[in-house]
Every structure is written in structure tokens, then in C-alpha cells.
């Protein structure tokens, strides 16, 4: 027993070292910079800076856009996951492949591709004007950002929901029908509640990256729309104010932790009595 534990520690040591260097140390640095000023004295100013009009606006837009994207992702992903779950193995592995294939390409490349597609003189508009149709003007608008978010994060919603759906025993669904429930009742009373753990992790996996992204807004939103991610990025790369950047990061982390805490509660209930 003792030996086993020792061996376990030995084998996990590379990961522990990795985690300390690349997770704990940076996190500690974020907190150090976020809670000090240039002289190194303790201050909450960097954190409270979120209250300034410019920063608060960026945070609200971020929250709003990621919420909208998450909702859109959910309504697109759920039916898709259901279709996948009801397919036989041969069919669905092909469809899952089609779905996962774009994820193997670099995230930046995919977003850049959308920029090219959506540009005023881009691919889509060239085709539209060639067909004498009205051109699309969504580049550099919130719509383009939402499109980018939905496109990039949709698989992260589909897969957990799909996973929770395939885990539902076909006989449980049959049992509901056997007891007199029609398809709609069966869906809302059985299938949907049983897939809540998947929905929750899907929401978390879409909402958090959408909330913190700065690439999508930079490439598809132009410089007009600043998300909180862009503000933080600019503090680090352009303004060189690591203290303010870290302070705002702490605020963002608080929102992420709230989101995860809420998911944890719902997930636990999903296993239990949640209906």
C-alpha cells in the first residue's frame, strides 16, 4: 500500500511540477500584479477599475454577447445531438467526424477565414453582388462576433449533450411511452431532465471561452467593439499596465468561478431530484 502511494506520487510528479510552473505561478502573479500598484503597495484600485464606464461597458457587452451565443449554440446543438444519438454507429461516426474536423484546424485560421468571407468585398458579398442580391454588412458588428462565437464553440455544446443523450437507456424512454406518455411528454419529462448534466457542461464550455475571447472580437468586430478580453489584452500588450490587466482578469475570474459554481449545483441536482 505504502509503496503504491509512493509510486503514485513519483509518477504524478512531472504533472505536479508542470501544474506549479504553468498554472499556480502565473495565477499567483496575476493576483500579485492585480492587487498591487507600480510601487508594489497593496491596492484594490486595479480591481475596482472595472467600475469605470469604459470597462463596465466592455464587461456588459462581453456578458451579453456570450450569453446570446450560448443560447444560440444550445438551440442549434440540442436537436443535432439528438439526431446523432438516434443514429446507428456507422452513420454517426461519419457525422461526428464532419463535426470535429474543423476543430482540428487552428482556431485563429478559422476565424480569419470568416473575416475573409464576411468582408465588405469578401467572398460572400462578391457572390451576392454577382447575383445582384443586396450585400451583407455584418463584419465589424456584434452579429459577426456572435457568428464567430457560435461557429467556434458549437462543437463544445454538441459533444457533452450528445454524450449525456447516448447514456440514456433506450428502455427508460420506452418505459415512459409504455406508461402512456406521448413523444412530447417523454421528451420534456424524461429525455431533457436526464440530459441536464450534458447541457450544463455544454453551457460552461461555451460561455466561459466566449466570455474571455479577444481574438474573435478583434478579427470580426474590428476595433469598434471592445470586449473585456480585448481590454485586458490591450493593457498587457499596448498600455503595458500589467497591474490593471491583472486586476481586470481577477474580475473576469470571479465571473467564471460563479458560472462554474452554479453549474456544479445544477449538475449535482441533475443526478438527483432535479426535474
Amino acid at each position, binding site marked *: 500500500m505504502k509503496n503504491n502511494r509512493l509510486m503514485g506520487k513519483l509518477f504524478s510528479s512531472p504533472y505536479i511540477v508542470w501544474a506549479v510552473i504553468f498554472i499556480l505561478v502565473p495565477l499567483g502573479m496575476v493576483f500579485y500584479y492585480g492587487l498591487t500598484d507600480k510601487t508594489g503597495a497593496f491596492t484594490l484600485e486595479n480591481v475596482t477599475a472595472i467600475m469605470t464606464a469604459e470597462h463596465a461597458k466592455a464587461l456588459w457587452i462581453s456578458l451579453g454577447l456570450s450569453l446570446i451565443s450560448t443560447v444560440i449554440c444550445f438551440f442549434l446543438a440540442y436537436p443535432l445531438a439528438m439526431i446523432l444519438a438516434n443514429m446507428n454507429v456507422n452513420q454517426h461516426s461519419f457525422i461526428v467526424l464532419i463535426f470535429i474536423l474543423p476543430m482540428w484546424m487552428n482556431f485563429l485560421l478559422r476565424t480569419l477565414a470568416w473575416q475573409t468571407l464576411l468582408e465588405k468585398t469578401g467572398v460572400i458579398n462578391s457572390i451576392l453582388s454577382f447575383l445582384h442580391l443586396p450585400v451583407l454588412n455584418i463584419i465589424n458588428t456584434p452579429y459577426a462576433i456572435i457568428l464567430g462565437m457560435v461557429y467556434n464553440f458549437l462543437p463544445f455544446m454538441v459533444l457533452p449533450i450528445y454524450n449525456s443523450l447516448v447514456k440514456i*437507456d433506450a*428502455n*427508460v424512454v*420506452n*418505459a*415512459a*411511452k*409504455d*406508461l*402512456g*406518455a*406521448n413523444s412530447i*411528454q417523454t421528451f420534456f*419529462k*424524461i429525455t431533457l*431532465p*436526464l440530459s*441536464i448534466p450534458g447541457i450544463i457542461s455544454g453551457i460552461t464550455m461555451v460561455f466561459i471561452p466566449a466570455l474571455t475571447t479577444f481574438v474573435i472580437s478583434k478579427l470580426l468586430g474590428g476595433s469598434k467593439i471592445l470586449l473585456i478580453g480585448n481590454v485586458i489584452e490591450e493593457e498587457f500588450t499596448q498600455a503595458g499596465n500589467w497591474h490593471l490587466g491583472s486586476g481586470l482578469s481577477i474580475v473576469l475570474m470571479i465571473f467564471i468561478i460563479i458560472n462554474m459554481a452554479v453549474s456544479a449545483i445544477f449538475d449535482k441536482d*441533475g*443526478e*438527483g*431530484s*432535479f*426535474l
Partner: protein
Amino acid sequence: MNKELINLVDISKSYDGEMVLDELNLNIHENEFLTLLGPSGCGKTTTLRILGGFVTPDMGRVIFDGQDITSLPPNKRQLNTVFQKYALFSHMNIAENIAFGLKIKNKPKTYIDDKIKYALKLVNLEGFEKRMPDSLSGGQQQRIAIARAIVNEPKVLLLDEPLGALDLKLRQDMQYELIRLKNELGITFIYVTHDQEEALTMSDTIVVMNQGYIQQVGTPETIYNEPENAFVADFIGDSNIIDAVMLEDKLVSILGTKFGCVDTGFGRNKPVDVVIRPEDVELVKPEEGTLHGTVTHLIFKGVHYEMEVMAGGFEWLVHSTGMFPGGTKVGIKVDPFNIPILNKPASEDEEATAIEE
């Protein structure tokens, strides 16, 4: 016999070109405990699913109480199913599970509460209302699955290998429980199993199936004592199935030795199968036996000894409370009443349906 409740008429079903049921005809009576018994892949579960409405037959009709329900969806049928591995709703507590069907039918709350109490009492799980399915043992979950089905007052309860996941002792207890439930409820039970002992213990009628065909329908006694063919004989309990020749009425030649029997009307010198149950083979002193042989194996089985006896070029399986160690010379005697004569399968086709396992 009570009046007929369900008629399966010429039911055929195939999956991916593979025939699962071939023109199956079966009549099920009111208040009957009917068991569909057979090895896996014999079509018993498909038959049950056709009754439940989860599978639509390719051909044929399902008549329920005089009405054709072949294309009626499951939620419109007057029968309920107890599924394999229970299929309880894990996100609802026991009371919600049991109430599910009644809530769908918009029954008043007091009625539902009474029904939950009644059902839990019936399955001996009073006070379990607030428990979650995961916190129950297999046997308890099984009872809840039954309670959930019967509160809807179905005319027929379909049970799909409900005891398959339970251990031996619990399985035997549940068999008595099911018989008691059936008698208290006074409804038809249609039970699917591959366990011949379960079938013999509980059923009024056993339907032995193999490869999509019904092999024999009868009471447990008939099925056990008078199997119609070698498959049934082999599937229900252990047996010695031996090639034989019917010399004349009441005289059969088994392994070259003449045995008296009680069957008539087979004609002279007709090749037949005889089925002799291991407990019907008597081991006696060599000079007293019709056939002579040597014990090759001896195993203690608890209630009896199981022995293998090499006699007349055939390895006889014998169950006896008397013990004959390996190497003992013995004589074999069989009471004429215990030698059922079976016709040989008429064609290759029937041969194929005979013995699978």
C-alpha cells in the same frame, strides 16, 4: 380456461433480412401466467416488444380483446411493461416514478397518492416514497418497476426477463412474489425468460420458442413430461436423447436392447427419438438391469448425485440419490412410463430448428 384476450395472428418479423419470427400464431387467455421460453435469439423478446408496441411486425395482426392493435403506439395500449434492468427514471424519486403513468392520465392527486401507497404495500416496500432509485438494491428496484407498471391497472403485464440481474436466492424469492402478485391482481402476465426453472415454477402456460418458431405450447407438466420434440426435451431440464427404433406397439429398441414403453401407433421398425430424464434412469445391480454399463463420472449435486454411465455405446446422464462410484458395473432400468417416444424430425428444416445450443 378463461376467454381469449390476445391473439397473435401470422406474425412475421425480420431484421436486416434475418427472420426473427415466422408466421407465429399464439392465443393468450385472461388471467393467465404465460411464459415465452427459449434461448437467446429465439424471438421471445421480439414477440413481447410487438405486444408492447415497440416493434411493428412486418406481417400479421395483434388482436387485443377483439380489436386490432397492430399499429397502435405503446402509449395507447392497455398493457404495461416491466423492462429488463428495470428502466426506472433515475431523476425522480420512487413516488414520482410510480405516479408517472397516472399523472400523464391527469388523475386527481388523492387518487394518485392512494395508488402509490397501495402499490408500495403490494410490493412490500412501504415508506419508500422519497427514496431515489439509485439508493435501492436490485431486488427493490425490480419491485418498484412492477409497482410503476401495475398502478395503471393494465389488463396485461409484460415482463421482459425481470429477474435476470438478480442473484439466485433473490430470484427464487421473487418468483413466489410474482405468483402472489398475479393472483392478487387477477391480470394476465406475459413473461419472457431463458431460464427453464423460472418458467416451470411460475407459469400456467409455457411457450417454448426456438429460431422464430413455437416449438410447443403447454402446461409446465406437459412440457416437462411430454416434450414434443428433441429441442424442447433438451431445453427443459437435462435429458438423454437417444436414437431408437420402434419395433412394434409398446416395444422400442434402444441401443440394440428391447425396452417396454407405453406409446402406440408408430408402426413397425420406425426410427424415433426417445427422451429419458436423468432422474428416470434407475441404476441397479448388473444382473437386474435391461442394459449393462460402467459408471464413468460421479458428482455430488446436493439433492442428488449426478453420474455418467457408459452403456450400449451411449453416455447416460443419471440423477440418483444412490451413490455408485466411478468404475462400478451397473445395470440400467427404465420404467415404461418414463420412455416418451418422439417422431424424428420429418425434414432437414425441422432438424435445423431442433437443437441449437
